[in-house]
């Protein structure tokens, strides 16, 4: 256990460090006494955490609710921004306690909290964390902070409502990733539609946003009614929707296959896999930058999480049976989306389509039936959450300055915006899956896993890596190199890198920095995540192999 703590020190120190950086942004005067105070408080938290270990999840959720209610009473926009970044940071700190106290040597659920939500319906609100869900929770709290920083200046209209919606999404996300009841999983999974729909619709940038919002809403709703049908059938015939019971239940194979297909379709809409991916580029392009970051960073992962948590353990036989089918669709999705990406002219669409490709790598890993594959899938999801968020933030920075996302109008930015070019370069490399970045670890693990069961799928699927290099490097080439297109954009200004009391602190460089830091750290030392994931992913494979 002691060694375990040492392993976690780098991330913890990072959290504290990152916290200081955020403080620097929010406070515009001398803050060193405050920093010491914050450190003391956080130390106190870590010591006290053994007492509140069972209640961390509850505290987390209650804090988010407090943030939502508190923001209602704040009038001016600047106060709303400051208060929400404070709340988001505290929530991030609390959620990092989950990681600090996490016992990596067991696959059992930890931090369990149960509330008899409806004994009449036999639905219990059980929250728990294991290796699969741990990093999704931290990712969602982390990305909320990032989203607030991203929308610091770009959101000028109805700031308060925006922040409340952001916290509402965070609340629902943490519930999705921790709840152990299939019915409540569905409730929260669907509940995210409302705030996301409103966010795309109100703060989207163009007229086509209405179309995009409709598509997003209806694709997901239509997909998920299939899941609802299965849930109702299970509820009637088994009498419970609790995960622990369903895992131990053996279905008749024909029924299991039908259930599997229905749930697969509804989750595949979220991933998204190819026939049902149309909503994703639309929604990404029309959403505000924070919305894109949330969509790519964490909402797509709900699909992957659903596969890992519910589909594989509850329907192991059907999962095994349908593995070739999934692999075929995933390979088609990878190749199709990669080829589509090359031809796009909109910066956000490129990143959106490349997300489709990466998420289908994840599908290859999930259905590889090996521990390496599943671990790689989780790792790649986390990594993609960071990388694609970073890329969307870069696009957001460009859009905030020059009000266009069409590649045609950009060129030679490396000479005019060198600091931005460096950040963008690191994110591009991570998107390619360069060794040394976090994506590489995930992709290599998935490659190892999928090689075990299907060489053809491995070879075909990993042509996507080559295509990824093609579109990413070509994108970088077109935007950053070449001649400066002075006829379109007259004035360029780079990200500021100095901290000066006169000009204040540059927000943009500081919000990109933690993402770059995480990408490199996880690329160099992946055990920060993998250590906690081992046991949980082993259980997923174990549950499958027991029956097959």
């Amino acid at each position, binding site marked *: 256990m002691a060694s375990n703590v040492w392993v976690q020190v780098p991330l913890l120190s990072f959290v504290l460090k990152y916290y200081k950086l955020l403080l620097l942004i929010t406070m515009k005067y001398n803050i060193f006494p405050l920093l010491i105070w914050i450190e003391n408080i956080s130390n106190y938290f870590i010591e006290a955490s053994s007492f509140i270990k069972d209640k961390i999840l509850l505290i987390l959720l209650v804090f988010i609710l407090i943030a939502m209610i508190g923001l209602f009473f704040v009038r001016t926009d600047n106060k709303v921004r400051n208060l929400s970044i404070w709340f988001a940071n505290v929530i991030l700190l609390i959620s990092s306690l989950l990681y600090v106290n996490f016992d990596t040597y067991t696959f059992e659920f930890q931090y369990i909290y149960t509330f008899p939500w*409806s*004994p009449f*319906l036999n639905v219990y609100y059980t929250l728990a964390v294991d290796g699969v869900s741990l990093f999704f929770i931290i990712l969602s709290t982390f990305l909320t902070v990032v989203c607030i920083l991203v929308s610091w200046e770009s959101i000028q209209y109805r700031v308060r409502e925006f922040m409340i919606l952001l916290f509402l999404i965070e609340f629902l996300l943490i519930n999705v990733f921790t709840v152990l009841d299939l019915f409540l999983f569905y*409730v929260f999974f669907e509940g995210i539609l409302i705030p996301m729909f409103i966010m795309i*619709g*109100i703060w989207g940038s163009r007229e086509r946003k209405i179309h995009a919002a*409709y598509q997003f809403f209806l694709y997901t709703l239509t997909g998920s009614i299939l899941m*609802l049908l299965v849930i109702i059938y299970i509820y009637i015939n088994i009498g419970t929707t609790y995960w622990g019971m369903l895992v131990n239940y053996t279905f008749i194979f024909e029924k299991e296959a039908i259930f599997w297909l229905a749930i697969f379709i509804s989750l595949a809409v979220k991933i998204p896999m190819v026939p049902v991916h149309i909503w994703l580029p639309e929604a990404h392009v029309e959403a505000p930058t924070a919305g894109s970051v949330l969509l790519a960073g964490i909402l797509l992962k709900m699909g992957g999480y659903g596969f890992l948590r519910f589909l594989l353990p509850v329907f192991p036989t059907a999962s095994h049976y349908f593995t070739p089918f999934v692999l075929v669709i995933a390979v088609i999705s990878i190749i199709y989306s990669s080829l589509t990406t090359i031809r796009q002219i909109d910066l956000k669409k490129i990143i959106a389509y490349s997300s489709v490709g990466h998420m289908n790598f994840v599908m290859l890993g999930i259905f590889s039936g090996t521990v390496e594959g599943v671990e790689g899938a989780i790792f790649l999801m986390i990594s993609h959450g960071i990388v694609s968020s970073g890329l969307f933030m870069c696009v957001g920075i460009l859009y905030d300055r020059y009000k266009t996302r069409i590649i045609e109008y950009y060129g030679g930015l490396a000479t005019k915006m060198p600091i931005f070019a460096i950040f963008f370069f690191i994110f591009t490399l991570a998107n390619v899956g360069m060794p040394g970045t976090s994506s590489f670890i995930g992709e290599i693990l998935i490659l190892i896993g999928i090689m075990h069961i299907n060489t053809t799928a491995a070879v075909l699927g990993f042509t996507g890596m080559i295509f990824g290099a093609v579109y990413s490097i070509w994108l970088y080439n077109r935007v950053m190199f070449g001649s400066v297109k002075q006829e379109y954009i007259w004035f360029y200004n780079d990200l500021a890198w100095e901290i000066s009391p006169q000009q204040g602190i540059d927000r943009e460089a500081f919000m990109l920095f933690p993402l770059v830091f995480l990408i490199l750290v996880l690329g160099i030392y992946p055990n920060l995540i993998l250590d906690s994931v081992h046991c949980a992913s082993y259980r997923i494979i174990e549950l499958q192999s027991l029956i097959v």
Partner: protein
Amino acid sequence: MLTLFSNNFSLVLPELYLFLSINILLMVGVYRSRTNILNYNGSGILRLSLLSLFFLIILYFNNVECQFVVFNYMFFSSEFILLLKILIIIFAFIVTYLSLSYLIEEKIYSFEYSILILLSVLGMLLLVSSYDFLSLYLALELQSLCFYILAAYKKSNSESTEASLKYFVLGAFSSGLLLFGLGLLYGLSGTTSFEEFIYYTSESIYSGEWGLAIIFILAGFLFKLSAAPFHVWTPDVYDGAPLIVVTFFATVAKIAAFGVVVTLAYKVFITNTEFSSTMLYSCSLISLFIGTFGALYQTKIKRLYAYSTINHVGFMLLGLSTISLEGLEASVLYLCVYLILNLTLFGVILSIRVNATNAKLVYLNEFRLLVKNNIVLAIVFTIALFSIAGIPPLMGFYSKYYVIVAAFRSEYYFMAIMALIFSVISAVYYIRLVVFMFFEHSKPLEFAFFKLVPFELSVVMSYTTLINVLFFVRPDNILLLCHRITLQFFTI
């Protein structure tokens, strides 16, 4: 032997009280409106009728006995009926409360409005507790006649009169159907009493004529419930009648019709469920279809509400058509949820008035004016719309879920899947209103100041919205209530 005088009048005390208070209020109203003709605005009678409804609720809550049959098997009551009666009175109370400001705004200064509301409430109370086809028919006519007059209450408006006439003609037609069915049934069984009828049919074998009679009788009440294919009056009446009266039709009137359909399908025709079940089933399917696809092309808010009502009636009938405990339970829950949500939806359009013209918003795309004027009202409206579209974690989702669970339990797989598909399609027109409100920016010079929301409306809407949002926290209480009340149909 039961005679008229051997009956216990204390059991029907609430109804007697209501009848007496209506008479007194009528006399007071006539006197006051004649003596004080210049500045009479009828609100005094309205307040008095509120008071009498309040006492009525107290009387029902303190009922000595809730399971009895009196007046020579003409009049009965049970826990379920009591729940329906309390619902009727509570919602009638709320609608009357809301009409305080509405009548002043619309310059309707006559006291007969409150008398008609009370009379129709009396009709509905008698309707749900009728135990004989004759008393059933009489109570139905009492209620319907009040409705016809109420629909025409805005005399200066030609649309209101037109709506009333349409309602009257179609209502008379449906009464004819009902009477035809009653006549057939009387000819076949020789009795009009439910008690004797149940006794009689427990031994006999049904044939085609019986089915015809049952279908005609149910058609008469499904008309009142505005279930398709008997829905034709609904959009026109909703569109033409005064808004407060439409609110009354959409909430209170539905409870009574629902109660009668339940009594018929679950008590009177329980020995032969084929005909009634098939009838409810097919009406449910058609209602879902028409309510979904009819609403997609509407541009007026009231017509949209009318079609949405038809859609929800389809859901209620789906629960009822299973003739099972779960189905009835789900339908009762659906009814309660539908009432609360409809109150919010109607409350929103009741509370919007353009300051300059005193006009209400009629078309859907006018709602983009709402956000700039009153963001809180827009949020309330949005929550209600998402809820009624069936998006979790709001209240509307659980009612739909419950109905579909009941349909699954009774192995109505086709119907359950159709209901889910229709509910997804119907989500389109609900979220279209959200799109109109939030996503479309109004044109530069387009702006209208709205009047302040009346106090009564803000109270009612805030409570309904709270229930809507907080239902998720603890759904068990209301589920258990529905369960307990519906159990009695199956325990005797």
